[in-house]
């Protein structure tokens, strides 16, 4: 009969009217995300060996690792910077990281929204106690300002700038 399909449809929507709703009240109720969810990154600057494998694996030049060599020739990390605005969340960097547990890894915290585009950068700086600082020129590098880090690295001649990530950040 013509119209039967229409009535059936009315029945379905009436049924759904009384069924439980799936809306999540977001800021109060946080979503229950699976372990592997790629929200944003957590980074452990103490286990990182500054090997730069992550920044080489990245297809988009998101990661920039800045380091210097101490007098024994060991790599010391200065600054680890990620421009999440260019990130594909592909996980190649995490896959490439050789340390266990991974120095760079995903976490489920997904709130990346920000008002200023500088805030999309994730920057971790590592400072060393004055006694450990080998050359005096290293001291400004530890403060974390990009210009200072650049000049300090230039002075020591050993700063590794591995990727083509655009300049910026604070």
């Amino acid at each position, binding site marked *: 009969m*013509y*119209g*039967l*399909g*229409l009535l*059936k*449809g009315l*029945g*379905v*929507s009436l*049924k*759904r009217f009384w069924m439980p709703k*799936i809306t999540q009240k977001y800021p109060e109720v946080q979503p229950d*995300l*699976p*372990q*592997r*969810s*790629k929200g944003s990154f957590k980074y452990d600057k103490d286990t990182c060996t500054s090997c730069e494998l992550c920044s080489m*694996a*990245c*297809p988009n030049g998101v990661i920039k690792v800045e380091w210097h060599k101490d007098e024994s020739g060991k790599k010391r990390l200065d600054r680890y910077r990620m421009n999440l605005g260019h990130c*594909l*969340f*592909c*996980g*190649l960097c995490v*896959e490439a990281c050789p340390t266990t547990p991974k120095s760079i890894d*995903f976490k489920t915290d997904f709130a990346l929204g920000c008002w200023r585009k500088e805030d999309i950068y994730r920057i971790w700086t590592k400072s060393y106690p004055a006694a450990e600082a080998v050359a005096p020129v290293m001291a400004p590098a530890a403060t974390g300002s990009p210009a200072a880090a650049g000049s300090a690295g230039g002075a020591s001649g050993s700063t590794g700038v591995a990727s083509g990530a655009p300049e910026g950040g604070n």
Partner: protein
Amino acid sequence: MSDFITEADGLETQEFILNLGPQHPSTHGVYRARLIMDGETVISAENKVGYLHRGIEKLAEGITYAQFTPYTTRFDYVAGALQPWAWCLALEKLGNIVVPERAEYLRVIVGELQRIASHLVMLGSIVLDFSAITPWTYVFNAREDISDLLEAVSGSRLLVNYFVNGGVNADLPEGWIPKVEKALDSMLKRLDDFDRMVSGNEIFVGRTKGIAVVSAEEAIEYGITGASLRASGLTFDLRKDSPYSIYDRLDFEVQSMPAGDSFDRYYVRLLEIRESAKMVRQALKQLPAGDIRAKVAKVWRPAPGEAYAAIEAARGIMGYQVVSDGTVKPYRVHMRSPSFCNIGIIPAKAPGLTLQDFIAFIASLDFVLGDIDR
């Protein structure tokens, strides 16, 4: 403008040009059709594409094989997980890599789940073009069930980077298989509601049956593939006709509909969802233990040569042609994307349709602009 003026029954009417898109609510992206209209009737249509061109084929030449894998999900972003499959198949052919059996099964499971999600989007968007918002929410909620599964296994909901050269990049998380059963049940229940609400609806049937009929010969001539081809009465499906991965071990039917009109293009996808759900269940049952990834060198340099591989993606045949010159980066990458080939039929079928039917017609072809423009 004078050449557009025609005389009909002594009444002077004037045809006009309507630029449908690139910013238009129902062109499914930045597709633009330049329509010449006579009132509400389309006189002729012209495809205008390229608004989303990102130059990805060129981009591939500058990065390594592994680094290009995540980019492949960005073409057909509605069926993200399926795209790297074709790319990885081409690479595996190029480097003679044998994918472990478990990885093949995982690929089929994730791939079919992704196909379900993609077809659900198509069902939702075609009814949305008839302003039916309520059934649209049903299928999108159903898709949410699938997205949760994909997120649990790969970490992403939309652009699923799960397939890698030589296998998949992670094994199933704990407790995932029972979740699949539950999600498929809940998805199918929502789909049934949707089916009852829309497929029998006289208004919907009246607006799609007999509209823009593409015969089997035309479909072949225009190079249409995928579900849009199977809606014209053909049963051509790479999963059956040149089985890759482990599709030959699964027992499934290729769904097809006889008429080739908008309704059949819609309905064949609904049938395929049910079939895919069956395939996922079968594959989960057969799932063997073992490795998930073949040994591939970190710095992978395939021997110089060429390879082409194609899969049955959600919208049709997705193929990759890769040329290697023996370095870490591909020399040239070219892809055959189904959406681009499928929209070739639009100018041929548009004349005579009303604007409303034209919208329904392009929705039933189910194209994705990222797949057309690359």
